[in-house]
């Protein structure tokens, strides 16, 4: 093993990178609580690992995009999705989660975008963990105040005659945006359609591109 530098000085000879900042007080409290719960047998370390793996298995591509693609090709499924989203998602063999799911349909006259101004409420069972920007103070504060400017920064210009509707997901419901099926996708398979439905399309900060 090449070991020609000293470990006495952690700053040299490599340039210093803060890759091991001390954890914050809140993070330490979380770690301590987790260790206590394991120690007291409320759950095991293995349960914890399994839960994390379970959460990480949910991705926008494998879950949410499948719901959108099915709605695009199957009018009966779409009708059920608009009426009872949690039930329709279950029909697809997906877990809609414990919260009531509501699907927001984009139309030529209406564009929907979702935020949680109070924290980070998000349809995790369909989209996985929210991106860092969704949880950022800037997105949460600005998208309710100047949604068109925020969408433009995402590269999405909404025409002035299209209503922009912001959904503040602050309490008990979770929201999934159903984007419009783009032109030029006639005859596409569900898998091919699902591939153009990105995470941001289902939050409302993008629209599917062909």
């Amino acid at each position, binding site marked *: 093993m090449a070991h020609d530098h000293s470990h006495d000085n952690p700053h040299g000879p490599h340039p210093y990178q803060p890759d091991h900042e001390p954890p914050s007080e809140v993070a330490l409290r979380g770690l301590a609580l987790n260790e206590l719960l394991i120690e007291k047998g409320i759950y095991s370390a293995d349960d914890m690992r399994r839960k994390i793996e379970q959460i990480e298995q949910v991705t926008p591509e494998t879950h949410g995009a499948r719901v959108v693609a099915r709605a695009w090709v199957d009018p009966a499924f779409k009708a059920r999705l608009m009426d009872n989203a949690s039930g329709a998602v279950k029909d697809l063999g997906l877990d809609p989660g414990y919260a009531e799911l509501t699907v927001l349909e984009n139309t030529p006259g209406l564009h929907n975008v979702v935020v949680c*101004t109070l924290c980070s409420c998000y349809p995790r069972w369909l989209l996985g963990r929210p991106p860092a920007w969704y949880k950022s103070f800037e997105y949460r504060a600005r998208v309710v105040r*100047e*949604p068109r400017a925020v969408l433009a920064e995402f590269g999405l210009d909404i025409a002035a005659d299209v209503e922009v*509707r*912001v959904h503040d997901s*602050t*309490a*008990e419901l979770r929201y999934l945006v159903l984007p419009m099926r783009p032109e030029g996708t006639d005859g596409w398979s569900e898998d091919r359609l699902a591939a153009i439905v990105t995470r941001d399309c289902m939050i409302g900060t993008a629209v599917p591109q062909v």
Partner: protein
Amino acid sequence: MSARFQAGERVRIDTRAEPRHHRVPSFVKGHAGIVERVCGANPLPEQVAYADPDGETRTVYRVRLNQRDLWPDYGGAANDTLEIEIFEHWLKEA
């Protein structure tokens, strides 16, 4: 649980201060809008956040507000809207 308000009804969000966890952001307090839909009953945030074993449930409504009402200097289109979930005990007739 019977809902006090119906879809289409005009309601105003209360302005009262609440030191407990209550899930009504201050930017909508005092504003009026239309009930877009009546959602189910859900545990009261003011109780459930503190693991109150006698916690009650209340009906939740999706309230649609006009952006120009929320922000006097709103720069977007006149018909832009914002929808938000509000528990029944934070709403009154408008």
